[in-house]
């Protein structure tokens, strides 16, 4: 079970409160986690990453275990703690705009 924390505007859009928990079969990577989020909550498609290129939206960041994973390969395995559900995967709306 993967634990995911979404920023509040995306929680509102998805109609969820608090942490999202998803079961994932296969490798736990940033791609597979976001795939699973979009599968469960189709209204979030395009809001976290581009529909076509799958590139992260520029003002979003992905954190886990105290690390910024935003620039890591989306196919790299996520830390074991995320895969085991002891640490959440964080989707952060970065502070921007001045």
């Amino acid at each position, binding site marked *: 079970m993967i634990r995911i924390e979404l*920023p509040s*505007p*995306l929680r509102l*859009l998805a109609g969820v409160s608090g942490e999202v928990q998803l079961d994932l079969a296969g490798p736990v990577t940033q791609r597979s986690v976001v795939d699973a989020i979009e599968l469960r909550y189709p*209204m979030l*498609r*395009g*809001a*976290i990453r*581009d*529909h*076509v290129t799958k590139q992260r*939206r520029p*003002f*979003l960041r992905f954190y886990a275990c105290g690390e910024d994973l935003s620039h890591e390969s989306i196919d790299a395995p996520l830390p074991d703690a995320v895969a085991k559900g002891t640490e959440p995967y964080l989707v952060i*709306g*970065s502070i*921007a*705009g001045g």
Partner: protein
Amino acid sequence: MTSVRLLVGTKKGAFILTSDGKRARWKVDGPHFAGYEMYHLKGSPVDPNRIYASQCSGWFGQLMQRSDDGGKTWTAVDNKFTYDGVPGTHQWYDGTPHPWEFKRVWHLEPSLTDPDTVYAGIEDAAMFRTTDGGTSWHELSGLRGHGSGSKWAPGAGGMGLHTILIDPTNHQRIFIAISAAGAFRTDDGGTTWKPINKGLNSLYIPDPTAEVGHCVHRIAMHPSRPNTLFMQKHWDVLRTDDGGENWHEISGNLPTDFGFPIDVHAHEPETVYVVPIKSDAEHFPLDGKLQVYRSRTGGNEWEALTKGLPQKDCYVNVLREAMDVDTMDECGVYFGTTGGQVYASADSGDSWKAIVHDLPAVLSVEVQTLA
């Protein structure tokens, strides 16, 4: 009993303002989608409770919403706008080719006959259509592909397709406008397009009378005269009486002919409204006085409408999508400002009153006259 509903898009959410036919007291509902830029909301003419909304965010990109109950509840619909085929390039600010990239939906124009069909004008400029209530969107790529697309360049606010007008007597004929490419028309429902910019004179482009490249800010039509269009260009107010084949200037005695919105009275096809703005560098009214100008002669002769509008220290702007009229017996006129006011006139513009004073900057105002 007849009532009026205003769909107001702002920089930080949408608001729905309602009143009875007297239009004296207003109920303010919102914000809907708090924190999001609401570029445009518009209801279906055949089912006014079916409303579509463009919801944008610098963080989360483009989202699309649909309501089937007049804006009480909303459902997210498809937000995937993929250009048809290989997108190619348009001209960038420095003259170099730049790939077409979807940025946002500027304008939504529901079909005049089918609540499930909606046209969307997007940035980078293209026209999309849904025929399934927003479940999927498909490009009408004949517009970008008609030949001049590679020469289009963005205006300062981006390269947006911001105006869509459907001819009520012939739904195959649609007029659109793009900043900064100009006006275009299709006569076959969007398969093929032609530029309709003859008569436009834009001194800020290398060839002032070029086929494309004009910064058209807004076009308006009275439904009883679909061949007559009124245009607010970057500078100049113009009209055509032959479906866009030829335009001529009608700025007349306007104190400045720069501005963004233009609209037509609901019952008087020769009564036109504009909001003169000082200049392209100074996006606020002349001398700090907010004035709507009205022509009852189809242009050239304009009168200032000031009663109830601030006449000193007013430095707001009125954006292109932020003016509309109702169809009550005495036509109501409405506009929103970047200062967050929405002004209403229940007497064709003779007098004005602010419905609200302190919304976020207003991006769009659409009026629904409800039976």
